């Protein structure tokens, strides 16, 4: 608590605005490699998270580490307001020691100066424990800024019973998926192979990722935004066609109406993330045993690629008074097998722990998927993810722009690639509004 009062003074003088405070965020961090904890002193770390079931892991840590207690504050999910709370806390110096931050939001907290540089605390010795691409999601300018927790490799959930009944082979390529979509329409006029969410741009981002896009890249000190590359364009044209021919349903996913259609067999597949398994089991319990999982349909079967949807980390915040202890907890939380198994039970996603599939309870047959060891598929998918994907300090607004422009295109029958172009222009503006340098795919403007 003394940390709070010390910081309160600093924060009050710096209350002038975001920019000044961003500088301050890094200023309050103690010199690397040092912690304020005296040997034998009992300390409490504050941890903000919303991950279901994470309390069990925290309890386990607390039982095993009486001197370094972790106080878990369950906050609302980041996108629903949790990040707003955390940003505000960073600005006023009241951030917790540790916080749940998704990969695509990490750069926004870089901008705030909210993330502690863990490099000086010896985080390097833990690198080999993690999935390499997930590790790199938390590395900025060669400094390690977070401890990776989980990702969301994508694969295809499908109703094996209905596919068999309607004589549909499990599609391996996107053209085959299109044919399968047409067969579903013919077999049951109320059924669709999938719902294409017009305002869930994390989904389309994943599809572009699979198609080989690199929407956001760095050129020196400037961001380069290219959302209409050949891969993204091909992906967009493909979905344009399916939408225009009404082979798929334009409808928001993961909401009550969509769940009802899953229950009734009116939506018979979902190209979704691994953490979607819990959503299906929880919201379509009546269809247990009828689902299977297969790899995502491919653009080029000779170069199989998967996509990723979502991913999260345990970040040590810059103003933590006990950074070493906080880092030790974050590493333990995400690599200790007991903890990881508890987190898997809660449905936290695909572990950032390397080779987790064979070492954890992921390697088990599941009744909901007809006894399939379905995580095997996600383990394979995880290996096919293009690991060079980068996120922006303004990813949240880009996803908002995409939601609006894609929904507009779907409503008006416009082209999806034009929606991406609109979002691309807006993204360049967003970055410039943050005082950063950015350009579109063309020449510097």
């Amino acid at each position, binding site marked *: 608590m003394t940390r709070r009062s010390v910081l309160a003074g600093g924060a009050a003088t710096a209350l002038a605005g975001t920019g000044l405070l961003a*500088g301050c965020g890094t200023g309050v961090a103690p010199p690397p490699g040092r912690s304020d904890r005296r040997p034998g002193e009992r300390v409490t770390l504050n941890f903000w998270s919303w991950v279901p079931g994470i309390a069990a892991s925290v309890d386990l840590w607390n039982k095993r580490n009486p001197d370094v207690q972790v106080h878990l504050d369950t906050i609302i999910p980041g996108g629903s307001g949790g990040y707003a709370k955390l940003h505000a806390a960073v600005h006023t110096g009241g951030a917790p020691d540790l916080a749940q931050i998704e990969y695509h939001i990490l750069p926004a907290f870089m901008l705030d100066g909210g993330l502690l540089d863990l490099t000086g605390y010896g985080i390097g010795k833990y690198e080999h424990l993690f999935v390499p691409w997930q590790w790199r999601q938390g590395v900025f300018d060669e400094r390690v800024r977070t401890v990776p927790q989980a990702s969301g490799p994508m694969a295809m959930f499908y109703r094996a019973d209905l596919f068999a009944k309607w004589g549909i082979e499990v599609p391996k390529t996107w053209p085959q998926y299109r044919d399968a979509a047409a067969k579903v329409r013919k077999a049951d006029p109320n059924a669709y192979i999938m719902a294409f969410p017009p305002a869930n741009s994390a989904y389309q981002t994943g599809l572009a990722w699979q198609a080989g896009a690199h929407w956001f890249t760095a050129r020196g000190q400037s961001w380069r935004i290219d959302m209409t590359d050949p891969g993204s364009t091909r992906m967009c044209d493909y979905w344009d066609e399916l939408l225009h021919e009404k082979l798929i349903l334009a409808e928001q996913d993961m909401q009550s109406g969509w769940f009802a259609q899953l229950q009734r067999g009116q939506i018979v597949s979902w190209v979704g993330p691994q953490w979607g398994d819990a959503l299906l089991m929880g919201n379509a319990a009546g269809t247990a045993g009828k689902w299977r999982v297969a790899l995502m349909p491919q653009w080029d079967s000779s170069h199989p690629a998967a996509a990723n949807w979502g991913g999260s980390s345990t970040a040590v915040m810059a103003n933590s008074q006990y950074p070493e202890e906080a880092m030790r907890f974050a590493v333990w939380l995400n690599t200790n097998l007991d903890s990881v198994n508890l987190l898997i039970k809660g449905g936290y996603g695909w572990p950032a722990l390397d080779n987790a599939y064979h070492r954890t309870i992921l390697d088990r047959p599941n009744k909901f998927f007809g006894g399939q060891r379905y995580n095997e598929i996600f383990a394979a998918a995880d290996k096919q993810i293009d690991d060079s994907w980068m996120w922006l300090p303004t990813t949240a607004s880009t996803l908002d722009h995409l939601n609006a422009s894609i929904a507009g295109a779907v409503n008006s029958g416009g082209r999806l690639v034009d929606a991406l172009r609109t979002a691309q222009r807006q993204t360049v503006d967003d970055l410039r*509004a943050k005082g950063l340098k950015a350009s579109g795919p063309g020449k510097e403007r």
Partner: protein
Amino acid sequence: MATTKRRRLSPGIWFLAPFCLFFLLFFVLPIGYALYQSLFRTERTGLYGELGTHQVFAGFGNYAKVFAEGAFVQSVLRVLGYAVVQVPVMIVLATVLALLLDAASARGVRFFRSAFFLPYGVPGVIASILWGFLYTPGISPLVSIGGHLGLTPDFLGPNTVLWSIANIVTWQFAGYNMLVIIAQLKAVPGDLMEASRIDGANAWQAIWHIKLPLIRPAIVLATVFTIIGSLQLFTEPLVLQPLTANVTSTYTPNIAAYADAFSNNNYNYAAAEAVLLALIAAILSFGFLRLVGGRRRG
């Protein structure tokens, strides 16, 4: 002289002090802070501002950008269009309900008054979730009944969702506005009504010539509330957002400011939006008051 004056003043000051303190602290100060913030912008070097971050004076730059980007202007036009329909519907409905309950022949007045007022007791978020279920195809009885009748109601479509929101708001607040008007109706002197009856006025004439002119202040008040409420539309569209692609992050001015402040973390820009919205609400509310006030004087 001086001492008596001070003695007379001091108790009043103490009564006023708590209000003034909180008014300053939670009203004037935040508005001043928002004004201040709206005049700055941030300049950064490096990909993440790691090489330097400065707050620089932007003048009215943020305001210029709000107008240039257009999304906020569009959201204002959207809620204005909404208000043009919603305000009259709300006020007419509230007035009619109030007059019905006030009518001499009304039965079950207490029951209906509570029933009409009840939706106001349901928090906005809950009301929106509730209506959200009634709007969602696949689980909504309304949609499936419509389907059986050969209709395909789409409550969440690009051109309909605004009116679905208007419906939620009307459902919630018509009863409240009705109560404001009823309170004023109760204050209509009985002898006035008696006199009108003796003079041979029928119920319609009594409403038109006595009740409506006398409840005019209550109607004006309810109208101002509704205008401000329309501009500040926030909860209902935000709750419906996950259900439909047609409520964007710049759907209403408040949602746009919220997204810019808390999702895009651009406080300066959001402050400019908030200040503009407050200005528009003030202009419309005072404009309306002046309009009706002027007519009264005329």
